[in-house]
């Protein structure tokens, strides 16, 4: 036994003494990124997830994308088609509807990693897969609307859409599939394609990618290794190897960063704001921490079917009773801007001329009294019939930041005589049933992720209120109905003139802030924890992650 112990001790000491971990700074040709989730499938059009987008962004490029200034730009195409430059032409569809024909040209130097050129054959094949009801593609709306493709040559094609919206040239989610690799698994059975795709069967096949990097190794649940793509047309990426390591626990993510096992924590899939602020206080001097306010809109939805909350005076009193500036300042060190509507101040359609609700407890109390909540008993308001002003608020259990904010809201509302009870649920239950089936009685706190100039059709249009009759389809969870809002949504979508559209957007925000179907809280910021030597990482704040510009990442001066 003694011998066994001696041998074990020697082995352990040997392991500990073995070349201490190389700090990434010493070998700056490798970058190790820590993220909190592993992608499910690698097929770009099936089962969307941010983890997948984050990794694939280094290996593939969309035709068009919103850049860091939230401006639509070309990536795989040579020129952004517009009506002004003649590459987009409004037309009538065969059914006589208002449509548009948009012409794109694929970059001449674009080739898949196995040197096969990216051509219109891939465009047609991707369209075929996207339109097939059994292919497993999630969002088919784009493919349904795209009713015809005219191929001009190997690289040029025209898309014909059956509707004309202001986003006519944004084909950000038209993710090309390599026809030379994917045709066989698809044609052998479209219903089984999702299980047979080369993206999952042979993820390291270089022919699947045409970005700056190729996926060279995958350990499911643990990490992905990326190496430069020799056929990449753009600026040569600096790093010889990028390892994306998945660490589900954020405390372990921090520890890995401090120990040098990873170089950076992704902003898109890393620490929450409160964790990043705590980390910055303790270790901020060792890292560069960037906070990018983005399109994730934290808010409290009212259930407008609740008679108590139907009264707009009560809703206004509730928002006036909150010092949202103080919440953002105290809990988030002013890193997350207070929201006044669902439109982000960084969005070009944002309007500052909307009704705002600064902290005013006296006005809140007056409004509540006006709404009939006049009698105070044990600090809680009651109406004349003796019913207490009691409201329930729900959010996702286990989300520390939300739970903290919820407690602060509760204490503010108590000061104006509103008895608010907290009733949280696991995210799975909260989003799986309570919110989606509108089973919350009063208030639900959560966030919406959107895109630049995102028309809130599914969230605010009265046709999108979920109920049993429509199988709970739609995301208008508040049950908000306003005919003018419905009209504005319809009109904005099809208005091509920017100035006219801007006016409509301003009116939309004004109505939102007046009617208050939700309490706008703040826009969430994404914290990027980067090594000081790394330059070129530019957070976007929208759903297209910073890794779409990975070729610009490189070591700078120490």
């Amino acid at each position, binding site marked *: 036994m003694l011998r066994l112990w001696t041998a074990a001790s020697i*082995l*352990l000491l040997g*392991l*500990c*003494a*073995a070349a*201490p*971990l190389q700090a990434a700074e010493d070998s700056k040709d490798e970058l190790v990124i820590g993220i909190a989730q592993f992608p*499910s*499938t*690698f*097929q770009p059009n*099936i*089962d969307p997830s941010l983890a997948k987008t984050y990794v694939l962004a280094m290996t593939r490029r969309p035709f068009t994308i919103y850049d860091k200034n939230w401006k639509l730009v070309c990536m795989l195409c040579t020129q952004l088609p517009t009506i002004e430059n003649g590459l987009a032409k409004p037309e009538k569809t065969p059914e006589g509807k208002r449509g548009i024909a948009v012409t794109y040209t694929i970059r001449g130097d674009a080739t898949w990693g196995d040197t096969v050129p990216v051509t219109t054959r891939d465009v047609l094949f991707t369209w075929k897969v996207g339109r097939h*009801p*059994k292919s*497993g593609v*999630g*969002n*088919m*709306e784009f493919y349904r609307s795209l009713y015809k493709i005219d191929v001009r040559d190997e690289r040029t094609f025209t898309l014909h859409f059956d509707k004309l919206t202001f986003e006519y040239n944004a084909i950000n989610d038209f993710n090309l599939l390599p026809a030379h690799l994917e045709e066989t698994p698809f044609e052998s059975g479209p*219903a089984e394609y*999702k*299980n047979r*795709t080369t993206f*999952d*069967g042979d993820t390291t096949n270089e022919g699947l990618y045409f970005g700056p990097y190729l996926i060279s*190794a995958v*350990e*499911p*649940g*643990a*990490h992905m*290794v990326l190496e430069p793509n020799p056929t990449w047309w753009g600026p040569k990426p600096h790093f010889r190897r990028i*390892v994306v*390591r*998945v*660490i*589900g*626990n954020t*405390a*372990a993510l921090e*520890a*890995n960063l*401090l*120990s*040098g*096992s990873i170089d950076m924590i992704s902003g898109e899939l890393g620490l929450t704001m409160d964790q990043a602020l705590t980390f910055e206080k303790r270790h901020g001097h060792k890292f560069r921490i960037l906070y990018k306010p983005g399109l994730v809109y934290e808010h409290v939805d009212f259930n407008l079917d609740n008679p108590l909350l139907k009264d707009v005076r009560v809703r206004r009193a509730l928002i006036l009773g909150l010092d949202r500036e103080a919440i953002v300042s105290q809990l988030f060190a002013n890193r997350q801007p207070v929201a006044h509507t669902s439109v982000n101040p960084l969005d070009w359609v944002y309007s500052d001329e909307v009704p705002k609700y600064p902290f005013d407890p006296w006005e809140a109390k007056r409004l509540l009294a006006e709404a009939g909540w006049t009698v105070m008993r044990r600090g809680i308001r009651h109406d004349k019939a003796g019913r207490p002003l009691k409201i329930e608020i729900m959010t996702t259990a286990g989300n520390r930041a939300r739970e903290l904010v919820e407690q602060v809201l509760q204490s503010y509302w108590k000061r104006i005589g509103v008895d608010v009870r907290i009733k949280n649920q696991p995210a*799975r*239950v909260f*989003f*799986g*049933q309570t919110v*989606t089936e509108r089973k919350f009685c009063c208030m639900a706190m959560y966030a*919406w*992720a*959107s895109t630049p100039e995102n028309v809130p059709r*599914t969230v605010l249009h009265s046709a999108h209120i979920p109920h049993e009759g429509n*199988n709970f*389809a739609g995301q208008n969870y508040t049950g908000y109905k306003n005919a003018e809002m419905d009209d504005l949504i319809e009109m904005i979508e099809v208005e091509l003139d920017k100035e006219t559209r801007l006016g409509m957007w301003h009116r939309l925000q004004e109505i939102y802030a007046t009617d208050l179907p939700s309490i706008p809280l703040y826009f969430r910021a994404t914290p990027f924890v980067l090594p000081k030597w790394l330059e070129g990482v530019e957070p976007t704040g929208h759903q297209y992650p910073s890794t779409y510009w990975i070729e610009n990442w490189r070591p700078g001066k120490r």
Partner: protein
Amino acid sequence: MIRFLAGRTVQAASVLLLMSFVIYGLMGLMPGDPIDLMISADPKMTSEDAVRLRKLYGLDQPITERYANWLAAAVGGDLGYSRLYAKPVLDVLFPALGNTVRLLAISFLLSLAIALPMGILAAMRPYSRFDYSVNLAAFAGISVPSFWLALILIIVFSVTFNLLPAGGTGTLSEGGIWETARYLVLPVANLVIVSVGGHTRYTRAAMIEALRQDYIRTARAKGAGPARVVLKHALRNAMIPVVTIIALDFGMLFSGALITETIFASPGMGKLIFDAIMGSDFNLALVGLLFATTLTLVGNLLADIAYARLDPRISYR
């Protein structure tokens, strides 16, 4: 013995069938489904898309029908695809199982290698300083939360002294066995520390009980030396309760250690099954849990056989 084994096999098959139904049913009762998760990741997905995808994945059928379809396919040898990983279930399961077995088998053996001698030595000198020290260490190990210990180990050995990797499994092109071993040190240490206390306490209690028996006094009276008395007469009898505990832990070898795997970013069965349940991956969760159940049943069967080997009074007919 053959009749006994046949009986236990039938019993195990019944338990597995029942378990599969219960697990499938419980997962079906959870609110939301994979399509809800897809919608939350892509707010532009329409209700028509949701209906189409539910049909494609068979989620529009009643849970009993889905279970019956799954069972029929499983009996035919088709365990289906993992929805989360878009691969055949076994292709996902086996690599995770390999990681888990490697991690937990080393921890398990190390834990026993420490606990058995410590328990025996403590029992030989009950209420001595040594016994109190062993008990103190055992209780400390039992009481310490594994997630906390894991973070402390990372902070001390990875962050402060930078001696060992904080987590992961090492990238494939690096280092070979040596590198793999370095990645295993901290998770193994974590699992050993939290499990060794329990094994030590069981061994000590069983040995104290055995050492009080008349046959021990008889053996000593017959002139048997201390080592022979302890190792040949007492230990063999004391092993019966210890074997029961070991058999129960045997199943855990294959079901994974969720907390340790999560914190050390080690992709094993625990994390896989957890993710499968949370991601509504019915096939993967079901097969993973059934696999763990099967091995727990096998562990119990082996324990029953070991009883007979340890105690001649026990026999199976």
